[in-house]
């Protein structure tokens, strides 16, 4: 599973999963803290649809953490103020970067979480689509 999909599942899914996966690593390996979870900003670059040019939409407040396992760096970063989750994400990222054997068994749990996210998204869509307008042509007298 690639990093984009993995981080998406861990951030949008239950925080318990990230906690559980990070715990597996912390209990077994030496995790060196490189950068304590700290606040910062990410500037958002946007493509507008009129001339299709680029501009800056504004910044988003983030929490970022960096750790090292077996000399491999891991980054945990997410929108908002969540030092705990940022740390868990960093540990999981470092575990993948270090190719730790535990990571090979995580695929199933991540895919299950993805299914749960999809279910919630489906439910959200159902509710929103109830507001879709059904036009009826009026009879001309």
């Amino acid at each position, binding site marked *: 599973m690639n990093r984009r999909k993995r981080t998406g599942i861990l951030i949008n899914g239950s925080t318990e999963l990230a906690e559980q996966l990070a715990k597996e690593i912390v209990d077994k390996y030496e995790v060196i803290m490189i950068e304590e979870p700290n606040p910062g900003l990410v500037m958002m*670059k*946007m493509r507008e649809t009129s001339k299709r040019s680029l501009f800056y939409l*504004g910044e988003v407040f983030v929490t970022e953490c960096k750790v090292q396992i077996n000399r491999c760096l891991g980054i945990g970063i997410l929108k908002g103020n969540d030092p705990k989750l940022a740390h868990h994400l960093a540990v999981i990222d470092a575990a993948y970067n270090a190719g730790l054997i535990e990571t090979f068994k995580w695929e199933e749990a991540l895919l299950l979480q993805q299914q749960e996210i999809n279910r919630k998204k489906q439910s959200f869509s159902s509710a929103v689509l109830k507001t879709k307008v059904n036009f009826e042509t009026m009879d001309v007298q």
Partner: protein
Amino acid sequence: MGYVAVKGGTRAIEESIKRLKFERVKKGTVLDVHKIETGMRGLIDQVMSESSLFSEILAAIAIKQAEGNPEEAVFLLRAYRSTLSRKHYSRTISSEDMLTERRISASFKDIPGGQILGATTDYTHRLLDFGLMMESEEEALQWLEGFEEENGQQENVTDLAKLPKVLDYLRKEGLMPECSDDDREPDDVTKKSLEFPSTRSQRLQILTRGQTGALTSLAYAVIRGYGALHPTVGELRVGSLPVCIDNPFNQYNDEDDSYYIGEIKATETEMLIPVTVEKERGKKEIKFEIGYGICLGQNETKAIAMGILDHALQTGNKEYPTGDEEFVLYHIDSVESTGFISHLKMPHYVTFQSKLDSVRKTKKQEAESKEESSLCK
């Protein structure tokens, strides 16, 4: 009269700040930040948009501290933002990836994917709901339960994350020229001061962080006659945009290797503006131009106003103040405009005294010359 430098007022200032707190808590009620965040969506979105900083919780704290005054809350957030480091730049965000929760067009009834009203006050009666005075959390939770049951799980044919754009439809139909990606790196007005003529990226950045009221008033002026535009909303969408950053250790900036950091809510509009173009042999033809608007949160009036002003500035008709980029871009920022206007109440003793001196001197000279002329007679 000489000038005298004065100091003092420390105690008065300290007591004034105490009174400010007194005014906030004097009724013995303390607003819960979480309740502000969840119950004041409109104000939160406005403050985030004008601060150019997406964080609901920070906006809620700022609103609490500012006692609901948006200009003060924006000032607080901009000040806090300046203490944080900018860690990354996002990958390019595209509104084609928006998970839409509201999407309408005022130009076309039958748009691909349909008109989705989402949450809007557009069709409410605007009658004050006195029942809200007695609303309890228990009641709200009960209502929520019923709402969720009512919606249930349905098989959706429309994918809200892949709604086609109205503009793409028009481009495909040949009603609007095709447009290829312009990948030039944008300018950043927070890093380098604005210079004229401005670039498109500077204009859009200033407009999107502009004060809602200022943008709305100027856009209204454009339509009323100070710009002669008659725009229609081609498409307005509200939804969540995914934000990702590149892996700093991957030089190829591969999307699959990027970090997803979360999603932000935004409102985007594409305004269609009819323009008459003269063809050969005096033949006239109508074509459509686009005004683009987007802002953080659900701020529909602001996004529409931005689209109108984007087009007015793109056209740059100096006949109207709204076509003058210096006039528009220098006056719509909340912190700059409210900061300047409100600074007028800060002590100006020296500058005012110097003006007073000039007036006294002139009066004295006038009196002396009057006296001299009466003596000559």
